[in-house]
């Protein structure tokens, strides 16, 4: 297929799905099947674009090259499409009919906004898309209305909007600096143009812009201390939505930071951007790892684990080329693992009726396959060998040591050990012991387990072998982002 049709399919499919869901009645099987198909279509398109990028091309589309997919965008597009397909197919099944319709509409819109954010070349349009993701996902957080979900949604929309507004301040300041240098031009806000002009930009302005951008997009990425909305939102939202949010929305925000860091690195040749990223990353890792200790709800446990991994990736970005390579690989692994885990937690919550760890026991007896996958996911998240996260964590640590941050890496290792002990401690309380009275044993809805098992296999496959196309994509990313 030619590039324009790929783009049309990638961006059109979620829109069409949203429209279809809005028009069709919520209970009908046809609507469910077609939205699922469209989501898979989007995934196919993303993979097609990625293949095109691997062959060396940089597909562009839209008026004035508005959409441009390079290696970084391709990886993120595939991740977004993969998780959205997973969520749209598995999500509505667990919701009541009325909610299913709203869920399908806004989940598809949510996927559309994320796809626009990662494929657009214009940084301002990227901001608009990310702001739109906040709005479309905020609607879905209080799907099951309760005091907790209303509170979580208010905090999410308020902190998210205020945070993202700061990012727009940063974008304006950067644009101001570009205008002050070369006057207003139509494609001034295109990332490629900014990269070309970056060496000439004024370090003072760009540093100020980067601070605003880091705080703004950091809020969306869940970096400490702007992370406080994340545990509430991800724990109270329906499982499929939190899978999308935790799995890939944080990655999209991190994508924005990577884009801007590439520009700022060229403009400001000092160590400040790296130091800021390492500082925030370490703070996130520390706060998240320590918060894991006292957790009582397994969905909040997964949310804090997302903050921990985002902090790790953020530090990876500041550890030189090998660090960026490891961070991006870690991003892919984390997306697969975290989305699987949230969908599994949705099934567990459905069966046990509560998210409280103390009331969940004998998981291996009541739901052996779900329990087994939950154990595999937990071991993956804490970075144990057969899974991909072990390899990316090892490479990231190696990059850290090679970059001379020995003490920093020692602190990271200590915090990861704390997180490990906390996570597995909670897991043990859920797995063993006698199941509480009234909880049925035996797996139901085995169909949903197949895609989840596929996620686990992807994790093991990425843990053992690094496929060649992915390696070229990651190398290409390292080339375009580090000078």
């Amino acid at each position: 297929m030619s590039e324009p049709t790929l783009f049309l399919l990638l961006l059109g499919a979620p829109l069409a799905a949203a429209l279809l869901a809005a028009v069709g009645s919520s209970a009908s099987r046809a609507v469910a099947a077609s939205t699922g198909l469209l989501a898979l279509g989007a995934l196919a398109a993303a993979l097609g674009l990625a293949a095109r990028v691997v062959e060396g091309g940089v597909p562009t589309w839209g008026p004035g090259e508005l959409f441009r997919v390079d290696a970084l965008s391709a990886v993120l597009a595939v991740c977004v499409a993969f998780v959205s397909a997973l969520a749209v197919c598995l999500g509505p099944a667990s919701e009541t009919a009325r909610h299913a319709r709203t869920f399908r509409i806004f989940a598809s819109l949510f996927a559309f906004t994320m796809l626009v954010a990662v494929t657009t070349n214009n940084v301002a349009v990227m901001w608009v898309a990310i702001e739109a993701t906040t709005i479309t996902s905020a609607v879905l957080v209080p799907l099951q209305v309760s005091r907790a979900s209303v509170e979580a949604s208010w905090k999410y929309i308020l902190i998210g909007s205020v945070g993202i507004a700061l990012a727009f301040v940063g974008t304006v300041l950067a644009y101001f600096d570009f205008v002050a240098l070369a006057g207003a031009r139509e494609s001034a806000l295109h990332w490629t143009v900014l990269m070309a002009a970056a060496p000439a930009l004024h370090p003072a302005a760009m540093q100020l812009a980067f601070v605003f951008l880091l705080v703004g997009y950091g809020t969306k990425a869940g970096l400490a201390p702007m992370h406080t909305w994340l545990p509430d939102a991800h724990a109270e939202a329906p499982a499929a939505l939190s899978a999308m949010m935790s799995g890939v929305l944080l990655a999209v925000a991190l994508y924005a930071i990577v884009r801007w860091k590439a520009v700022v690195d060229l403009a400001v040749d000092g160590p400040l951007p790296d130091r800021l990223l390492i500082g925030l990353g370490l703070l996130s890792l520390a706060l998240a790892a320590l918060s894991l200790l006292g957790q009582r709800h397994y969905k909040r446990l997964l949310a804090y684990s997302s903050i921990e991994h985002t902090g790790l990736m953020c530090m990876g970005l500041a550890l030189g080329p090998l660090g960026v390579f490891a961070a991006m690989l870690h991003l892919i692994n984390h997306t697969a693992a975290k989305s699987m885990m949230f969908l599994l937690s949705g099934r567990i919550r459905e069966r046990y009726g509560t998210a409280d760890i103390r009331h969940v026991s004998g998981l291996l007896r009541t739901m052996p396959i779900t329990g087994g996958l939950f154990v595999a996911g937990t071991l993956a998240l804490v970075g144990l060998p057969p899974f991909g996260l072990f390899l990316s964590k090892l490479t990231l640590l190696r990059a850290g040591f090679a970059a001379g941050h020995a003490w920093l890496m020692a602190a990271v290792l200590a915090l990861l050990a704390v997180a490990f002990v906390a996570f597995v401690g909670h897991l043990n309380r859920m797995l063993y012991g006698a199941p509480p009275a009234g909880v049925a044993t035996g797996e139901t809805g085995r169909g949903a387990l197949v895609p989840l098992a596929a996620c686990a296999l992807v994790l093991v496959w990425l843990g053992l072998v690094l496929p060649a196309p992915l390696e070229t994509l990651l190398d290409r990313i390292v080339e375009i982002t580090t000078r």
Partner: protein
Amino acid sequence: MESLFSQLAMLGSSLALIASFLLLWRRGIPAYIDAFVLQSLALGATTALVGHFTGNPELYLVAGLLTAIKGVGIPLLLRRMARRLGSGRRVPPYVNTATSLLVGGLLVLLAYVVMRPVVQLSQLPTRAGMPLAMGLIFISLFVVVSRRHALTQVIGFLMLENGIALLAVLGTYGIPLIVEIGVFLDVLMGFLVMQIFVYQIHETFQSLDVEQLNRLRR
């Protein structure tokens, strides 16, 4: 000619800043809404002003849109919400008026210090207004942080958007049109969703005091 343009721009942005101080000083939701309207009109005027002096017709369209949505549309919805949900018993903010005015002043000073290296870079006549825009941004952040009533927080957020739009107009003579429209859409959608949530909060918590939203701990 240049000096007149810059003086008028300074007038517009200082008017917007004063509106934010009005909000810090006054009490009660209706007063906040009036301050917001004043600010939006000032912003619209400044945009039109810049459009006139730089001979860029698009900015007129932007100014028109701005005054229509932010000057008239949103305040209408805000007043309807305030009337229907009732501003309820007076919810004292965390910080009393005197301190909040003092903090406002400090924030403007901070804005000047922050923007000083940036302003020197630009040659645009309107560059002198940028620290004021940044001050407006800081003050609106302070409003969102310190006010306990949900509606006030929404107004604070809208003021933040105004501050950014002002910064954009002063610093870069307006960002490209499609982006401008995108931002408008976002602000509008954001406001609508916030409106839904305010109604939901009112329904489930029977009051708009955000302090009650503290059950999700750990």
